[in-house]
C-alpha cells in the first residue's frame, strides 16, 4: 500500500476547500444554538478576523523552507526526539476530533433518520466509508475534498426562503448590539473560536501541497467562505426561530431543514443530512491518515513500507475508542456533552497554539 506516496502536489483550490471543510464540521449544525443573541453576528465576524490573523501566522510557516520538507522539516527544527514527543501529544486531539465528529453526526442521524437503529451500526457504516477513502491513499483523500465541498456547500442556498416573510421578521434580529455590559457566556466564544479550528491539520499535509507564496491568499479565501457560511446560517436561524426559541432548540440547522418542503419528497432533511456525510467522511479519512502517520512516526517506521495490518489496526483502535465513548460516556444533549466541550477546548487550544509555536520555532532557527 502506497498510502503516503506523494507523487503530485495540489493546487490552491484544494487548500481552500480543505481549510473550509475542516473548519465546518459538526459545528455548523449546532453553532447557532451557542450564539443565540443577535449581536453575536458581530462576534462571528470579529472571531473570523482573529482567525484570519492566525492563518497569516500559519502561512508564514508554509512559505518557510521547512514546510516543503515535510517531516524532515520538523526534524530540522526540533530534533527527532522532540518531534516524536509532539506527535505523541498530537495523537489525542486527532483521536478526539474523529470520535466527537463521528459520534455527533451519528447522533444526529440517529435522532432524525434512524431513531430505532442501534448506534453501533451507524458508527460502523460511516467509519467504514471513511476508512475506504483513506485506504485509497493521501493523494486521493485530498482529491476527495472536491466531492465533499461540492456536495455540501450548496445546501445553505436552500435556506434562502427563510430570510423572507412570512417566516422571517426583522424584529427577531433586534437589538443588534449587546444592551447590557455582558458579552454573553464564555461558552459561546469558545464554541465560536473552536468552530474556526481545523486548518492546523494542514501542517501534516505540507508535502502534498505545492510550496508556494500564494498560500496566504487561499487561506484567506477559505476563512472568508467559512465566515460567510456561519453568518448566513446564524442569521437564517435567528430569523426562523427568534432568539428565545433558538435558545431552546438542540440541532437548529437540522430543524430548519425539516421545515423545507418540496413537491417531490417530503423529508428533505434526511437527504440533506445524508449529503452532509461526505464532509464527515472526508474529515474522518484525513484525520485517520494523520493518526496512522503519527503512529508510524512514534514507532519509528516512517521510512518503511506501509502495511495493511498496520493500517487496519489503526482503524480498529479508533473504532473501538468510538464504541467505548458511545456506550458509556456520550451524553445526548450537545449543550451539556462533556466530549463536545472537551473537543471545543482542545480545538481552540491547538488552533491558537500551533501557528504561533511554529512561527517562533522558525524565528529561533533563523536567528541561530
Amino acid at each position, binding site marked *: 500500500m502506497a498510502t503516503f506516496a506523494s507523487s503530485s502536489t495540489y493546487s490552491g483550490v484544494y487548500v481552500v476547500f480543505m481549510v473550509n471543510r475542516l473548519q465546518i464540521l459538526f459545528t455548523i449544525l449546532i453553532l447557532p444554538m451557542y450564539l443565540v443573541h443577535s449581536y453575536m453576528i458581530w462576534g462571528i465576524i470579529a472571531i473570523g478576523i482573529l482567525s484570519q490573523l492566525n492563518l497569516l501566522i500559519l502561512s508564514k510557516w508554509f512559505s518557510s523552507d521547512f514546510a516543503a520538507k515535510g517531516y524532515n522539516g520538523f526534524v530540522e527544527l526540533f530534533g527527532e526526539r522532540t518531534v516524536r514527543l509532539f506527535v505523541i501529544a498530537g495523537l489525542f486531539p486527532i483521536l478526539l476530533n474523529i470520535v466527537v465528529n463521528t459520534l455527533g453526526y451519528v447522533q444526529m442521524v440517529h*435522532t*432524525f433518520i*434512524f*431513531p*430505532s*437503529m*442501534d448506534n*453501533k*451500526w451507524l458508527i*460502523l457504516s460511516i467509519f467504514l466509508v471513511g476508512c475506504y477513502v483513506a485506504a485509497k491513499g493521501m493523494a486521493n483523500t485530498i482529491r476527495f475534498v472536491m466531492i465533499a465541498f461540492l456536495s455540501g456547500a450548496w445546501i445553505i442556498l436552500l435556506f434562502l426562503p427563510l430570510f423572507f416573510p*412570512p417566516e422571517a*421578521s426583522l*424584529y*427577531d*434580529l*433586534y*437589538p*443588534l*448590539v449587546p*444592551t*447590557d455590559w455582558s458579552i454573553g457566556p464564555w461558552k459561546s466564544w469558545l464554541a465560536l473560536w473552536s468552530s474556526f479550528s481545523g486548518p492546523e491539520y494542514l501542517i501534516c499535509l505540507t508535502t502534498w501541497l505545492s510550496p508556494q507564496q500564494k498560500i496566504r491568499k487561499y487561506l484567506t479565501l477559505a476563512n472568508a467562505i467559512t465566515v460567510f457560511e456561519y453568518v448566513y446560517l446564524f442569521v437564517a436561524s435567528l430569523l*426562523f*426561530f*427568534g432568539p*428565545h*426559541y433558538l435558545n*431552546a432548540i438542540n440541532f437548529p440547522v437540522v*430543524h430548519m431543514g*425539516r*421545515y423545507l*418542503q418540496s413537491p417531490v419528497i*417530503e*423529508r428533505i432533511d434526511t437527504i440533506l443530512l445524508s449529503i452532509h456525510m461526505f464532509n464527515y467522511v472526508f474529515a474522518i479519512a484525513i484525520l485517520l491518515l494523520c493518526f496512522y502517520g503519527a503512529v508510524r512516526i512514534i514507532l519509528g517506521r516512517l521510512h518503511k513500507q506501509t502495511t495493511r495490518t498496520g493500517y487496519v489496526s489503526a482503524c480498529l483502535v479508533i473504532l473501538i475508542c468510538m464504541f467505548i465513548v458511545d456506550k458509556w460516556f456520550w451524553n445526548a444533549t450537545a449543550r451539556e456533552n462533556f466530549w463536545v466541550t472537551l473537543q471545543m477546548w482542545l480545538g481552540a487550544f491547538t488552533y491558537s497554539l500551533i501557528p504561533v509555536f511554529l512561527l517562533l520555532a522558525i524565528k529561533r532557527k533563523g536567528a541561530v
Partner: protein
Amino acid sequence: MVHRKRAVLLAFFFSIVLTTGCSPFVENNTIEEIAPVTFWYVSSGGEGKLKISTLVPPLVKEKKRLLTLQVELVKQGIKQFNLINYRELKAGQTRMLLISEELAKQGVISLINTLLTDPELSQRLYLAVVRGNFEDYIRNQLNAQPSLDYFLYAMLKHYEKHYQGEMTIVNLHQFMKKLYSRFSDPILPVFKANKSSFTYEGTAFFRNDKLAATIKTMDDQLFQLFDNDYYVKILAMPALSVTIGRVRSTVHMELDANYSSLSIKIDLSGRIEEYRGEKNILYPEEVANLTNEIKSYLEKNTKALFKKMQQEKVDPLQVGNLSLHPFAKPLKKEEWSRYWQQMKINVDYQLHLQPLINIKK
C-alpha cells in the same frame, strides 16, 4: 492463503458486530401493512386524562372507523391504538392536530412538546381548536364523506398557501415561534363541529399556552387584515348592507415614545361589490356618505378588537415588537404587558373604494 485469511478476518469481524446487537432495522414499514395516521383529535377525558381519536384506515379502500381511547399520555394512546386495530399506526404522515376547546383552555404545551420532539412529525403540522363534539361529526359524516379527513387537510393546505385571509392557518412551527417570542402570543383557528357540520368559526388568542379568547366574523375579518397577508377577499358588513371585495390593507402602526398610545393608520383599497341599502349610490355624494359610514364602522370595530386584546392581556399582532430597536435595550415581557393594557389606541382608516358600476337603481 491471503484470501482465506481475509475472509476469516471479515467473518470474525462481522460476527463480533452481530453478537453485540441484533439486526439494525427493527421497524416494519411495509406500506400494505400499516395505517399512516393523518390527524389526531385530542380532547380532555376527565380526571386529567386525555381522549384521543383518529380515523383508520386513511388510505386503503376499506370501511373507515373512528377509534377513540382514554389515556394518560399521548404516546401511550398511540401504542394502544395498535392493540385495537389490526394495522400498525404510523405517525409519520400526521398532518393535523385538532384540540378540543376545553383542553386548549387548560393549556396545550405538554401536548405540543410531545409532537415537537418527535422527529417523524413535520414542523408543518396544522394545529386547530375544535369547539363542540368533533367525534359526533365524524361518526355522522363517515358514510356521506368517507375521506373527510383528507378534505379537511386539503382545505387547510389550500388556504395556507397564500395566506389569503379566508381563515387563520397556523402550523406547529409558527405556534411555537410565537409562543417563545418575547412579546407576541400564539393564535390558532377555531372550528365549530356538531352532528352535521364543521365550520370555520374564527381565531383563538392564546395567553402563553392557554386559550384566552375567541373572535368571530367581523372581528376575525379585521384580524386577517392586520395579520396574515393583509388581504381579505370579501369583507362583508351586514350592518351597513354593503360588501367590499378584494380588500388589501397597508397597516402602519406607531408607538409613541413612552408607550402610552398606539396610532394605527390603515389604507384599505378594494371595491364595493354589493350594496343592498337605501342610498342611491349612483350619486357621488351618496357614495361619499357611504364611505364615511364604512370608515367609522371599521374604526369602531377595530378599536373594539384591540380593546378586547388588551383586556385579555394578549398581543397576537406582535405590537410589542414595535418597541424593539436595533440599539436599545428591549422591554421585559411584564413591562410590555403593563404598557399594553393601558395603551390608548387611535385608529385611522383611509378608504380607497371603487364604486359599483353598471347598475340600475
